[in-house]
């Protein structure tokens, strides 16, 4: 197995006055694809403001992030603004069932076979507690996965130092991710970049826990810090950019790259020990 490059960002497109960074982040993705033609893109929700209407996807998303060279390699999770339409139907119509799910089944998983990772996309905008259909599906999906290392995406972060701060609801996702020894969680919603140390769901630092990133830097007006959050290792509130992950069977590397191509945050971490044995 080789490696899989992932470009991830959320909160991108909309009216230029309120989404001044969208064109630049799409251009950055296109530049990175020249060096990584097999990279995939993860859109972390709130992709087309203000309401996720189909016309907003056509008018604002299509000219930049929705161009065929980017859209054809994009998987997504829905955001709260996508749900300002009935059941986020235009969002699901735009990305299609394979890349987004459906209004009635808005979560899915994809094996990233080239690197031996498991990608799971969840919906933080609907019910997600212990008895919800989504959580039951998640448990079954993680138990049946082909590859050990897990990369999970959903829109609304459990922890955050910027706008919106913490959200209690995704704790259910986090519990499952910790139990499955997931590696990486990617969120948007807050318009800044932030990286956390691996931690337990109750914020106790733990190298066996997942590492959470917030990458809400896709183009919507950036937002500032509102508090200090335990285990936050790095945060930027002043730069549009995207997160480049390089997934390998034994490790992952992260780089937060600003729209002027500067690498502002980078590091590498081996995957959790026991997971290198779980490839089935």
């Amino acid at each position: 197995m080789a490696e899989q490059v992932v470009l991830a960002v959320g909160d991108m497109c909309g009216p230029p006055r309120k989404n001044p960074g969208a064109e630049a982040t799409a251009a950055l993705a296109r530049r990175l694809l020249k060096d990584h033609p097999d990279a995939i893109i993860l859109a972390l929700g709130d992709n087309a403001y203000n309401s996720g209407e189909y016309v907003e996807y056509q008018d604002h998303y299509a000219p930049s992030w929705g161009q065929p060279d980017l859209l054809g390699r994009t998987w997504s999770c829905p955001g709260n603004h996508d749900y300002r339409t009935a059941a986020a139907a235009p969002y699901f119509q735009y990305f299609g069932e394979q890349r987004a799910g459906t209004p009635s089944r808005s979560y899915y998983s994809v094996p990233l076979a080239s690197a031996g990772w498991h990608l799971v996309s969840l919906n933080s905008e609907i019910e997600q507690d212990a008895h919800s259909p989504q959580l039951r599906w998640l448990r079954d999906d993680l138990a049946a996965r082909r590859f050990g290392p897990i990369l999970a995406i959903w829109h609304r972060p459990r922890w955050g130092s910027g706008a919106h701060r913490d959200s209690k609801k995704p704790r259910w996702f986090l519990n499952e991710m910790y139990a499955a020894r997931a590696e990486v969680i990617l969120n948007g919603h807050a318009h800044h970049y932030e990286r956390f140390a691996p931690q337990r769901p109750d914020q106790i630092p733990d190298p066996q826990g997942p590492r959470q990133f917030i990458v809400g830097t896709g183009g919507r007006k950036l937002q500032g810090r509102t508090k200090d959050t335990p285990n936050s290792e790095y945060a930027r509130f002043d730069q549009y950019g995207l997160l480049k992950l390089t997934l390998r069977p034994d490790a992952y590397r992260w780089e937060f790259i600003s729209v002027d191509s500067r690498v502002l945050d980078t590091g590498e971490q081996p995957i959790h020990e026991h997971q290198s044995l779980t490839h089935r």
Partner: protein
Amino acid sequence: MNINLSLTDDERHACRRAALLLKALAGGLREAGTRHEADTCAGYAATLDGIVASGECCDVTSDGKVDVEQAAFVLEGIRDGLDNADLDEGADFVQRDIERLNDIVFRYNSAAGAMS
């Protein structure tokens, strides 16, 4: 899309308190001369009052659901302001109400998806 939701006591109390805060904010904004924002906040409050008045079961429209979410966003600002002023207990109480409002939004979204 109209969805009939069952609300818990906590959710209805959260709606009632959020409406009170929004009406006070709307009054202040009106005095300050920002009429559009004042009217918008008053509109969110009216939606929340309507939900409270419906009792345990209420019909929520798609616009009403967006009003609840917007109300939660405004409350986030109030929470952050209380926190900045070291009024911690108030910030914690407002945070709990934000979570209850979000519960209503999530339940509406789930029901809307199931009906699609």
